[in-house]
């Protein structure tokens, strides 16, 4: 992830939604809960996704590492 993408994510913490593209092909609209540069991860709630199967039955939040994200917009 680029510094600009990290900046975008930080501006979206508890403030609207962002589109996250993952290297495995998943595209998710997410509500950002936390972005940690020291931990290199993002914590988010899923608003919508093309991989519903991945989140089925999980009512919690989700964590993804920076190196699993291909793009943020």
């Amino acid at each position, binding site marked *: 992830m680029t510094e600009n993408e990290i900046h975008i994510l930080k501006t979206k913490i*508890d403030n609207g939604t962002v589109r996250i593209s993952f290297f495995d092909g998943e595209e998710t609209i997410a509500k950002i809960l936390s972005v*940690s540069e020291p931990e290199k991860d993002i*914590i988010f709630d899923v608003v919508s996704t093309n991989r519903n199967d991945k989140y089925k039955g*999980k*009512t*919690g939040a*989700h*964590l993804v590492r920076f190196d699993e994200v291909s793009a943020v917009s």
Partner: protein
Amino acid sequence: MTAPTAGALLAEESGVSFAGSGTATVVGAGSAEGTVRLLDNTTAALDNPAEGTGAEVTADVVSEISNTITRARQTIGNDGMFVSSKNIAENVAEQFVGDNARPIYDRVGNMVGKISEDGTKIARYTSIEKLDAYINLENKPTGGNLHIRWLK
């Protein structure tokens, strides 16, 4: 008439009272929270302390948990500290995010943390298996980011 137990005497002297299995009430000066809950495995460990009396261990544990939670809630910016055991760190993390906290899952479905019901406090367990293991407690309102490591 039943004589008071060593644990009761110690609790009275230390200002810590115990309110049954799994809970302990801190009444001494300097405590930030009225009640400290203990995880089930902590209670079990206290029933069978490795050394010394259970009461001594319990008073120390309750005090350490209470003080660490206070520090986590007051931390501003990045900070780190040691506690005496992994179990203490886990207790603190549970208390930090509070009741009704939601689990946080990684990409393969492992539970790797918890977020408080209001979303302001996060406990990350993602580094709990590392060589330099720690639990990360994030306090969004203060910008606090506390790494809790343990001695054993």
